[in-house]
């Protein structure tokens, strides 16, 4: 399955940002923007909702800390209680370093895997919608052809007036 899209190419992040704002201001939905590095202000310009990765990170961290602390307590009080100099079996302070490390481990790996899953990045995935030069020095604004031919023309005009170096209609994989 392929989809018809309009792609506007830019060579400058500031002109790109202004063009994106203007196209969206004219009521044309932005499908995506492809850039060689993160352009600040682009999330607002595209109207992206803030990511919830922070919540994911917190929950994974909480899980890690809980698992590590409970696991250690279980070992030292239930499964294999060893009397070390008459100290309490369930003294929490000595269990904190490992609980902390496992918290960080779970939070970091959990967040990274969630990111990879959400962005559908995985080893061996073919790079689709890879426009010429977007990993080097070119910036591409993509408008879905489904918005209609009139809207596509409007978007093309706005992008050209904001300094697009070229625009093209092309087919991309779904």
């Amino acid at each position: 399955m392929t989809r018809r899209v309009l792609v506007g190419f830019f060579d400058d992040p500031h002109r790109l940002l202004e063009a994106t704002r203007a196209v969206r201001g004219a009521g044309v939905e932005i499908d995506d923007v492809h850039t060689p590095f993160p352009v600040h202000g682009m999330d607002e310009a595209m109207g992206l909702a803030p990511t919830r990765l922070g919540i994911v990170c917190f929950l994974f961290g909480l899980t890690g800390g809980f698992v590590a602390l409970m696991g250690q307590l279980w070992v030292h009080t239930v499964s294999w209680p060893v009397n070390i100099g008459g100290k309490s079996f369930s003294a929490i302070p000595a269990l904190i370093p490992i609980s902390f490390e496992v918290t960080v481990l779970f939070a970091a790996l959990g967040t990274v895997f969630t990111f990879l899953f959400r962005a559908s990045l995985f080893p061996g995935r073919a790079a689709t919608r890879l426009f010429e030069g977007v990993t080097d020095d070119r910036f591409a604004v993509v408008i879905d052809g489904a918005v209609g031919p009139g809207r596509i023309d409007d978007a093309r005009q706005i992008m050209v007036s904001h300094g697009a170096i070229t625009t093209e209609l092309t087919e991309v994989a779904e």
Partner: protein
Amino acid sequence: MIETALEFERPPLIDGGKTYHDVTEDVCSPIEGGPTSAWYIAIALSSTALLTGVILVTHQIWTGIGAWGLNKTVGWAWDITNFVFWVGIGHAGTLISAILFLLRQRWRTSVNRAAEAMTLFAVMCAGIFPLIHMGRPWLAFWMFPYPNFRGPLWLNFRSPLLWDVFAISTYFIVSATFWYVGLIPDLATVRDRAKGGVRKFIFSIVSLGWNGSNRTWSRYEKLYLLLAGLSTPLVFSVHTVVSFDFATSVIPGWHTTIFPPYFVCGAIFSGFAMVLSLMIIARKVMRFEQYITLKHIDAMCRVLLLTGSIVGLAYSTELLMAYYSANPFEGFLFLNRMRGPFWWAYWSMVFCNVVVPQILWFPSARRCIPVVFIVTIFVNIGMWFERFVIIATSLHRDYLPSSWSYYSPTYVEVGTLVGSFGLFFTCFLLFCRVLPMIAVAEVKGVLEPSRRES
């Protein structure tokens, strides 16, 4: 936008008026061309050192720990010195990538990739020493808790040595993850430049189908921030836990509360020294002078001066506390460090770590490459001596004079240290050949060529 207007006033971080394409070209072309003769010479030397290490470690495992110069009194010496030394070196990478990121130090973009790679290789070197010190390294998996049929038999989670296992493993895994996440966009850049063949194939797999979509960038930036936030306390915790190996024991000279901050600062100090030594060579050999400029070297020297001064303060605090605590064992230990059989190690440490870096107070010294290089070499040596002083001199004369002894290394221990340097440099040289040594996407983010034109 007042913020951006102010940034415009700052001098550019990268010299030479580079365009985005220039950055891609400069960083990617060294790995696309063939190796230079200098690289072949370097890899020949480092792999010879590595091979020496492999042979001697094999010999040591075959004959047992007796191949080392340890004795009943000095049960830890070169091995654990090397362990702490390498873990310390491994602190600069995450410091540069995480803490300087949170502090919005944008100059970090030129050095973070190589420094993070260095971290990984240094932690690998560090991990070898406790492993071979076990005597039976094939049973190393006993260090991890796993369900077993030996009764219920578990590890002692209240032991600082086990905390170390968790801290170092977590640090390695999280640093490697952070490094790889940072690499993904640059791997895609290399993939898109490759015309075909093996490079295209491999980089297509490892770049995970990256296409620069802003929907992905948006999440990616959040992920990077979260990882930086997680790595910052992690980097502090790792050397804190390493210092607990000593601080929670009752050996004079080890049993002090100053150890965690003292060790963390020492680690950053030694790590920055190693980053600087390597970067000074790499910027010359790889022709990255316009990316790693004198401003970058100056900034790193300031970090070196700060952490070096904290380390100097820690040395004097230790002395003061030994005197002020009125503990005869503690007092004796410090006098023995300064005037006993290992006096040369103590004074080498003070000279290399406290005296030599003072030259960095002068701006002209911070911008003079040969001076900086010599200072960093002194610091590398001094920080090795610091760990040796802490470990060997504290052990060799303890509470019972009848058990006092001396320690001198055998050729096996010396060769193992040489081997660990071989491993470190071999890995680093291979890294320089196959992966972009500078974070291309991050450097482009701080480039702002159009604004400079206007």
